[in-house]
């Protein structure tokens, strides 16, 4: 049996990065995710795998270091929390515009502004609808356990390189700070120079061999036709991602008459709401989107006809519910319940709201 270790969600990110052959981490301290860089610095992976770890002067610099490393075809990442991610959005737009792979971890805290250091899910819009300028998308993975935090680092890099696109792990302060047992995965070595050349020499800045012209990594196209063609190409890529990469989990939806949609830590709390409902003879189930972009549209769409009501439960003022309403398309009442600023609802509290809604 694989080894299991008790660790925090933030520590899991750091251990997974070293374990999956990450080439470089660049970050800036911000609560509630500073343990990511602290763990990496304590582990000194530059002495073992050769991974570079660097504390940057700002989140702006962190993401641009990621940009430089990604230009070289390296597996590079950063982590931050909400206000820091806002600063990184310029860089994310450039990374998407240059079609570069990278991993960004957002351990969300409440906002807007400096907000609170308490957990939140209020960056759903920012993560899934853009954040930076221009028509681009970020693949967004929503962990609901410390094991997910660990596993999504490797998965994130796989998806980032498969589509040459930024991937974000959208966690929250709960998942980042809580401790759970994590099953460790077999270690992947960092890519060798030869593997890097084989995989990325057609586009990356690895140094120009005599056999090819210089590679230029840029998102600049002053000609309107060229820019439009590139945007059409990007949208085609996003269509493929939407068709092939939607991930989700269901909990007791087979016979359900009512559905809760929730992601991250809220999906786990809502599984307890299902048990409360079923004790009262109400058949409730949970759909947990694992990818927030691409959204599991088909899965939700297929569940809508059997439901009498749907409720989106989020740690924000109602963000994902807009997607739920769009997909439900008026076929069934869609309710919302959310808490903000770090307050986390209990199963009983959510169940009470659920019962009120379905009795309306």
């Amino acid at each position, binding site marked *: 049996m694989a080894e299991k270790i008790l660790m925090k969600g933030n520590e899991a990110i750091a251990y997974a990065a070293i374990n999956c052959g990450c080439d*470089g981490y660049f970050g800036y301290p911000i609560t509630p995710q500073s343990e990511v860089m602290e763990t990496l610095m304590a582990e000194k992976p530059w002495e073992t795998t050769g991974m570079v770890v660097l504390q940057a*002067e700002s989140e702006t610099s962190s993401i641009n*270091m990621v940009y430089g490393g990604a230009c070289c075809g390296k597996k*590079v990442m950063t982590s931050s929390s909400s206000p820091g991610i806002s600063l990184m959005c310029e860089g994310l737009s450039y990374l998407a515009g240059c079609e570069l792979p990278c991993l960004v971890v957002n351990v969300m805290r409440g906002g807007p502004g400096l907000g609170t250091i308490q957990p939140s899910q209020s960056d759903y819009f920012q993560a899934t609808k853009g954040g930076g300028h221009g028509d681009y998308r970020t693949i967004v993975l929503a962990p609901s356990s410390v094991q997910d935090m660990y596993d999504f680092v490797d998965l994130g890099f796989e998806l980032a390189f498969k589509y040459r696109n930024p991937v974000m792990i959208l966690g929250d302060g709960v998942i980042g700070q809580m401790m759970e047992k994590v099953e460790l995965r077999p270690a992947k070595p960092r890519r060798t120079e030869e593997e890097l050349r084989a995989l990325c020499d057609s586009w990356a800045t690895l*140094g120009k061999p*005599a056999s090819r012209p210089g590679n*230029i990594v840029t998102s600049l196209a002053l000609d309107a036709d060229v820019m439009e063609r590139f945007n059409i190409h990007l949208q085609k890529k996003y269509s493929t991602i939407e068709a092939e990469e939607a991930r989700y989990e269901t909990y007791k939806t087979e016979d359900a008459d009512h559905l809760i949609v929730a992601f991250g830590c809220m999906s786990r709390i809502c599984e307890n709401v299902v048990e409360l409902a079923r004790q009262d003879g109400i058949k409730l189930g949970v759909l947990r989107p694992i990818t927030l972009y691409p959204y599991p549209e088909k899965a939700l769409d297929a569940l809508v006809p059997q439901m009498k009501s749907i409720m989106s439960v989020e740690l924000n003022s109602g963000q994902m519910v807009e997607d739920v309403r769009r997909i439900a398309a008026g076929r069934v009442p869609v309710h919302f319940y959310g808490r903000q600023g770090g307050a986390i609802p209990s199963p009983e509290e959510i169940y009470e709201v659920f019962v009120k809604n379905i009795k309306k």
Partner: protein
Amino acid sequence: MEINDIIKPENKVYGKSPVLKDAVMHYCPGCSHGTVHKIIAEVIEEMDIQDKTIGISPVGCSVFAYNYLEIDWQQAAHGRAPALATATKRLMPDKYVFTYQGDGDLASIGTAEIMHACNRGENIVVIFINNAIYGMTGGQMAPTTLLGQVTATTPYGRDAKLNGFPLKITELIAQLEGTCYVTRQSVQNPAAVRKTKRAIRKAFENSMMDKGTSFIEVVSTCNSGWKLSPVAANTWMEENMFPFYPLGDIKDR
């Protein structure tokens, strides 16, 4: 000498570096960028490092530097080139990594990135083109614009009360422990070109010796932005820029 003798290979006295692409430059006649590009190409050719050099272009007129030098290029967001260079050099320490930045890019929006990259002593080369104006956006005030200098956003001349003072960022950079070589050069005549070329070669060599950051400011002309002929721009630069931005090595260790 007859033309047929002149074109014999043994009589050749000058040739375009093969590191320069056969592209028509978009720079205005008289602009310093083309000369500095040519110098970098020659240094890369002479050091035989075309396969090991990675350039990072800025936002500004020289964003298109990647169209002129046949090497691998990254195009940074405005001001962020030193951050890209930091990661690139640390992830690929056997490569020669240089940023090419203008005064708006390096000394205004990118002040944090250049200060901290230099302070960490990244083993990179920074080529800083100071022409005291924003070229690409149409001649607005730069951080290095001289007091009294007329630009699109200082139509009555730069006024210290309104606009602050011109920034001698190269002197600030020289104070940082991480820098090993900080110099200010120019390219308005053959002697200056030769000095700048020696400086750039030295900087590239430094970057493989784990000595820290090498920083070369090139005081430059923007005759379109200054609204002067190329010759008059050179004279204006010598008479107005050089007294405030004196040429020469500020630090060499």
